């Protein structure tokens, strides 16, 4: 039985496997959307709680659940207050960051990430919300058109047109369109167009 069916059927072990496989992708997607590593942790936790709540909606057919999770993370980030309210008791129990040894390089790197992302987000913030979603999923998270369409629940053609508009706006704003990221996984015939 594949992981989609197992999770849909309420298999907790399978859900744990999904966390192991996808938590990093969700965490980084959340950081790109929030520009805050700490908030990204909250979003990650909320995303998986929401995913469990919504597991009955998983289509038994399909590949990786990563696009579905990133779609949930996108909505959680946007509707943080609502998601937090739904899981308010749980969030109160969410373990906060503990005092850890000062890994100076790691800390400096994270600060630098946030500063670098802040510059990127200035341009990103000028996009319409729907263009932001598509841009974050296709360009930052490296999803293919079909996967982004699945994540957002919109047709593939809509993803393509929104991404195209986003790129044009960024270019017009003086930000060169970013080069594509090499990602693992099937991106189909659209791969070249993403770049």
């Amino acid at each position, binding site marked *: 039985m594949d992981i989609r069916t197992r999770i849909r059927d309420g298999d907790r072990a399978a859900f744990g496997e999904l966390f192991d496989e996808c*938590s*990093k992708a969700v*965490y980084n997607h959340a950081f790109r959307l929030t520009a805050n590593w700490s908030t990204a*942790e909250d979003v*990650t936790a909320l995303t998986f709680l929401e995913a469990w709540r919504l597991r009955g909606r998983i289509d038994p057919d399909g590949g990786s659940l990563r696009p579905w999770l990133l779609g949930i993370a996108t909505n959680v980030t946007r*509707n943080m207050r609502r998601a937090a309210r739904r899981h308010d008791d749980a969030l109160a129990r969410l373990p906060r960051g503990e005092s850890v040894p000062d890994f100076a390089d790691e800390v400096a790197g994270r600060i630098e990430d946030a500063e670098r992302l802040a510059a*990127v987000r200035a341009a990103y913030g000028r996009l319409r919300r729907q263009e932001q979603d598509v841009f974050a999923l296709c360009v930052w998270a490296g999803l293919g058109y079909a996967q982004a369409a699945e994540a957002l*629940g919109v047709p593939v053609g809509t993803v393509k047109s929104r991404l195209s508009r986003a790129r044009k706006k960024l270019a017009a704003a003086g930000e060169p369109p970013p080069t594509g990221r090499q990602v693992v996984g099937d991106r189909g015939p659209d791969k070249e167009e993403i770049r």
Partner: protein
Amino acid sequence: MNWPAERDLPEGRRRLLKEFVMTEIDKPAKRRVPRLAVLAPVLGLAAAAAVAVPLLFGGSPAYAVEKRPDGLIDITINEVKNPEQLQKDLRAMGANVVVTYIPMGKKCSPQPRSSHFLSKEEAPLAVFPPPEDRMGQGFTIDPRVIGEGRTGVLEFSVSEKDGGVVAGIWARVGQDPIAGCELVDTTDAPLMH
């Protein structure tokens, strides 16, 4: 444009978060207040009975609509009456919508009322979360998302509870034409489609 490389959760945090998530999903689901009441409680003044309304309300309107400078429209429902006039008022403000009030235990028939409804993401007609000054005050819609050849469908589920009116909204943009609404009995949750 340059952005950071992907990072993993800090040492130990991933394990903690996983433990947290796995523990939480093991807990029985918490009983929730019906979504209707949570989503948008319109805490009108007492609406003990429609007959007594004029006396009780001292002339306050059944509903209120106000257009914002940015084009959004605020809707507040105080009483369960006159959806036709609300629809007219909204149309006069440029919002091509149909408005239906749906009592508890009822739903519209036929369903769906349009051959194609756009998703909430494609056409977010109901603004959520609402503007800060409208939190808990009612509903805000964005008529700009409707577009040509389409109509906004606003279905309000209204009930009277604890002396106040509680309203929930279902708002979608559908391809024309939009079917009329004949109220039929249902045991589904309010505004279930």
